[in-house]
């Protein structure tokens, strides 16, 4: 679980957005939406950085991350053969709903990566699904084609309308009258909370600042509707829509 992974590649795929492929143990990955916690050796980045598993196979893990602060900036400078100390897989991940007929993947920005694994699973299971992907602007768009390649209808929307539709993901869902009876979502908290307020049912992946990433510090506790809580790193990051306290 505490392992050294080697960087195979680390390429820029959109504005400040990088795709990194890591070589190492993937045998413990159980579900799409799990994440890894990356140690970045620098005195300014004392804590690990949690990043979702976007895709994986028997030997590699793919992550997609946006340069946000110091840690992701350093991560973006890593090259082939550099080693990274990684804890993972962590968290629960998305559980594929095999009953709902028409499902929907709803991703915002760097919330999109973990949903790619969901899409692959839905595709494998022959479940019908559409995809709505929201970005800030044209320069931020990535992975649209990857979802199309799985045969899904992909609706791209940008806040400034520079690519696809204009507005947020809910705007598209409403204006296009997209029908679905279950969803998987990841993205900015605002987007997730807006979704929960609607009548849909589904699963949502949340972010919290983490001390440990494996359940030890109580840093990431998220209140749940049963007056209890879940640790985003352990019983999360994926919550059911009915659990979410807004």
């Amino acid at each position: 679980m505490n392992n050294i992974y080697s960087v195979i590649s680390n390429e820029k795929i959109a504005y400040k957005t990088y795709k990194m492929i890591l070589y190492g143990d993937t045998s413990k990955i159980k579900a799409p939406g799990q994440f890894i916690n990356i140690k970045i050796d620098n005195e300014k980045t004392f804590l690990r950085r949690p990043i979702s598993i976007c895709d994986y196979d028997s030997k590699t893990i793919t992550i997609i991350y946006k340069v946000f602060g110091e840690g992701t900036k350093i991560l973006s400078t890593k090259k082939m053969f550099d080693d990274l100390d990684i804890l993972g897989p962590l968290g629960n991940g998305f559980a594929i709903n095999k009953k709902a007929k028409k499902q929907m993947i709803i991703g915002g920005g760097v919330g999109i990566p973990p949903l790619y694994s969901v899409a692959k699973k839905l595709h494998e299971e022959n479940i019908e699904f559409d995809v709505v992907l929201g970005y800030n602007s044209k320069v931020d768009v990535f992975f649209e084609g990857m979802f199309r390649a799985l045969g899904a209808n992909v609706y791209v929307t940008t806040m400034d309308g520079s690519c696809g539709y204009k507005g947020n993901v809910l705007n598209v869902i409403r204006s296009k009258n997209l029908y679905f009876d279950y969803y998987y979502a990841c993205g900015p908290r605002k987007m997730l909370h807006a979704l929960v307020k609607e009548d849909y049912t589904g699963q949502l992946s949340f972010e919290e600042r983490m001390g440990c990433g494996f359940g030890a510090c109580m840093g990431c506790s998220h209140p749940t509707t049963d007056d209890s809580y879940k640790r985003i790193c352990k019983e999360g990051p994926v919550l059911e829509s009915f659990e979410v306290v807004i």
Partner: protein
Amino acid sequence: MKLNVELPGMKLDNPIIPASGTFGFGYEFSEFYDINILGTLSFKGTTLEERFGNKTPRIAESTSGMLNAIGLQNPGVDAVISNELVKLKKVFNKKVIANIGGSYEEDYIEAVKRISKSDIVGAIELNISCPNVKEGGLLFGTNKESAAKLTRLIREVTDLPLYVKLSPNVTNIKEIALAVEEAGADAISMINTLVGMRIDLKTGKPVLANTYGGFSGPAIKPVALKMVHEVYSVVNIPIIGMGGIMNAYDVIEMMYAGASAVQVGTANLIDPYACKKIIEDLPRVMKELNINDLKEIVGRAHL
């Protein structure tokens, strides 16, 4: 090579004790390694009633350290006994240290009374230094009278060895250490976190929802060493030293300062194997430094 040390009421195979709040209730770590290798452990700060704690973000980062404002989230002493400690007992066959927090004297007393009945508890660690709860907590620890009074009250309600955990956020920690010693403490745990804050540059707002938090990690080690060193020079009870311990060398340094045993906190969060690595590395480091028996180096910096 002798790694065993003694604390009031506890004989430890080695001086390494995961610090409260950074090791859950212990059993979570047994998925990483067999936790029976530990000296003992101090479990998550427990209060009389269940507490959800503070709003998130509860965690921030700083150069060589972190800030937390958990706010003593815990399921309450009864659930700890009936649930957490039962799970712990399955994977740990030593006595543990019960870290008890509170807001008022009454709830400290009641929580200690109840936890003292648990047969896995070998000592009480009275947390009078939590910076993240609104009432009580730190307030008890910043004033020698209230620290002594609480210690005395707790001394009366439990037969277990009583360790009092001190705050570094004070003008004169010696005074407080002496006061709790006189009031009946059997040992002193120190230090709890320094109070600190970070501000998000993008928003201009504090990173922590609670504004301030407890600062821990290697950044605070010199402060911890100094305070352990000065308290050692005035009290006659053992000190459990902590603050920024990351490796076996740090353990030795803390013992030189005056600690009879050492707690490891933040290191567990960065690396769940930290305590295991430290314990395994100690013999090598002892050899390098010509140390044969850890008990003999306690307070060496005072000679």
